[in-house]
């Protein structure tokens, strides 16, 4: 008697859910249009919803709202993308009430693209005209290298460089490495001086992606019909073998990143360098306050002597969601937010965002010497690095699960149960499986 009743309850509940789903889907179909949006201005006053987790964004938006009484922007907020906001975006797209604008990191853009969640802004002449204002590779991140497509306005970038303890390198007569070979040689010397050259990030795969990006690894490709997944190409394998070598010789530490132990390793001079993105400057400053004045920044070590290639770690775009009734106004706001000097200055001072525009690199705040880094104008190094990032690196549509499998493997490599190249191979297989299970076409 009891059992069938229980099932009935469950059936009722799921029926309710299904009805809701199918209704939501209906709205979606009605709103979707083929190709680029027409991008015509709306008549009359417009209110836009904008979801982001940038701290202090309200102040920036207020400047816009005061100057544009007919295009008012309302800010919604939440946890960072992978912390729940991306999932919310997908739910809202399904329910037909997504915000007009959303903050999406570069590595998550393709997942929205394959779900047909983004408005193509290539129909907005203002947007396509702004192309030359942006650093080439950031534009590549929002167009996916396709013709006639712009799926967001680049907001910030994470060009990488080498943070190092200038005082310790000088004291121990270790030259600042300019190539990865020199970096490995320096690692031996640092070890004999009682430190580690750096900490290998075992659970944040983004850093490794940036290192592969620099070396010429290309993890994903999309020819318009099918995705190609390759975490085992020559260049990625080169990087993996290199770091596996450092791990095997115990030249790098492996505390979990973003923890207090990790901070402490830098604060107590146990770790001497960090190959990281521009926003890492702030991480070291707040994580290792006792080492103020002792750091400096140099360009990333190169694979070939005299080379000038940098990697990128992080960065995001402002995207317009499918179904927005005001794509023109939304695009206009996104352009102002990410190209105007007043907005970029505020985004930098409120949230340390490093602009994706060429002109943004010359903001007054990014030209000054930084006391923590011995007065060095460190952002000059990053400005140069930003121009040296290859433009053809494409992210896949399932990065969250790819990161998860890769990070499991990386932890295994650190503890000795597997190796980095094997972990990457495994992550590749899992990613292909995952794409197939979502009916995303994969070439093998």
């Amino acid at each position, binding site marked *: *008697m*009891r059992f069938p*009743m*229980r*099932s*009935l*309850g*469950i059936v*009722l*509940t799921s029926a*309710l*859910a299904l009805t*809701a*789903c199918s*209704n*939501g889907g209906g709205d979606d179909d009605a709103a979707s249009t083929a190709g680029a949006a027409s991008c015509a201005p709306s008549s009359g006053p417009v209110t836009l*919803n904008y*979801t982001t*987790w940038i*701290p202090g964004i309200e102040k920036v938006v207020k400047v816009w709202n005061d100057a544009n009484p007919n295009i008012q922007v309302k800010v*919604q*907020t*939440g*946890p*960072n993308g*992978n*912390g*729940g906001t991306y*999932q*919310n975006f997908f*739910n*809202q797209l*399904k*329910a*037909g*009430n997504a*915000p007009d604008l959303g903050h999406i990191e570069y590595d998550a853009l393709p997942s929205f693209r394959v779900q047909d969640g983004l408005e193509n802004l290539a129909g907005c002449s203002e947007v396509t005209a702004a192309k030359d204002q942006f650093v080439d590779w950031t534009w590549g991140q929002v167009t996916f290298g396709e013709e006639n497509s712009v799926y967001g306005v680049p907001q910030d970038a994470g060009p990488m460089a080498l943070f190092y303890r200038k005082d310790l390198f000088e004291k121990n007569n270790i030259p600042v490495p300019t190539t990865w070979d020199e970096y490995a040689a320096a690692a031996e010397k640092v070890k004999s001086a009682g430190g580690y050259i750096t900490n290998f990030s075992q659970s944040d795969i983004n850093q490794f992606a940036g290192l592969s990006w620099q070396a010429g690894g290309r993890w994903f490709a999309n020819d318009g019909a099918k995705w190609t997944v390759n975490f085992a190409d020559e260049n990625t394998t080169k990087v993996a073998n290199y770091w596996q070598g450092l791990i095997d010789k115990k030249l790098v530490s492996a505390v979990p990143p*973003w923890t*207090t132990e990790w*901070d*402490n390793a830098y*604060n*107590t001079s146990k770790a001497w360098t960090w190959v990281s993105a521009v*926003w890492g400057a*702030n*991480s070291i400053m*707040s*994580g290792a*306050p*006792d080492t103020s004045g002792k750091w400096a920044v140099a360009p990333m070590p190169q694979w070939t002597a005299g080379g000038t290639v940098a990697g990128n770690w992080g960065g995001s775009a402002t995207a317009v969601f499918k179904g927005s009734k005001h794509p023109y106004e939304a695009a206009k706001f996104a352009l102002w937010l990410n190209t105007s000097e007043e907005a970029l200055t505020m985004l930098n001072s409120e*949230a*340390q965002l490093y602009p994706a525009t060429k002109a943004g690199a010359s903001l007054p705040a990014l030209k000054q010497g930084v006391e923590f880094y011995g007065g060095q104008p460190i952002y000059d190094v990053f400005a140069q690095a930003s121009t040296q990032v290859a433009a053809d690196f494409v992210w896949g549509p399932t990065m969250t699960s790819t990161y998860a499998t890769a990070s499991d493997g990386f932890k295994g490599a650190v503890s000795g149960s597997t190796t980095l190249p094997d972990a990457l191979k495994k992550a590749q297989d899992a990613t292909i499986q995952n794409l197939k299970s979502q009916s995303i076409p994969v070439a093998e």
Partner: protein
Amino acid sequence: MKLNRIAPMVIMGACTLYFLVPIWWLLVAASKSRSEFSSTDPLWFADFALMDNLRELFAYRDGVFLRWLGNSIVYTGGAALLGTVLAAMCGYALAKYRFPGREAIFNVVLSGVLVPATALALPLFLIFSQFNATNTFWSVFLPSLVNPFGVYLARIYASASVPDELLEAARLDGSGEVRTFFTVSSRLMFPALVTIFLFHFVAVWNNFLLPLIMLGNERLFPVTLGLYTWNTQVNQYPEVRMLVLTGALVSIVPLVIAFLLLQRFWRNGLGSGAIK
């Protein structure tokens, strides 16, 4: 003989330690400045900076944390209070009135106990979307009102503790059903109601996914979601770490107060249920 007493004491001591150490850690961590947090012994105090941390926490972003705390108290306290009344009335009716379909209703409600709140969050979001009611106070408050487990407890307790003869007597004296419920039956059920209230309070407080999915307006967040939001930003903005820690410490205070005030009734309720 002695061993008989020592062994349980050791086990209970270990359990107490196990449960108290995280809270102790939190208290110690929240009392440190950011640089001392990563460089000093995690289980003992350094310079006492709790007051500075609190001041910073309450001032950050125009005091949004206090607003979250207030929201949490309204969401959980309000929903638990109203939800307890609803559950009590429903359970009482199922226990004391005979009507066709009574068992069927009860079984459907019981099946609701088996459906986790997390599984319902997304369907609820889609339903509320139909009415353009997401991102409102009601989108979190209304779904939090229902509590099938409370109905179950109320029914069991009502049939055990409210004698039919008493209801008969009340009817003979001319009391209406509603009045009887509020003046007689609910008094008899009081220990059970406290238990239901506490269960409900904790369930709503812990239902994290519903506000996460429903809300985008920071001024409507409950404190759990707000702290989580900050915590996801710690990698990029390490300066919020101390705010998260201090906020976590402050946010357990209402729970501790609720339990200290009500535990007397709760023990009473569980115990008296056991005898009958």
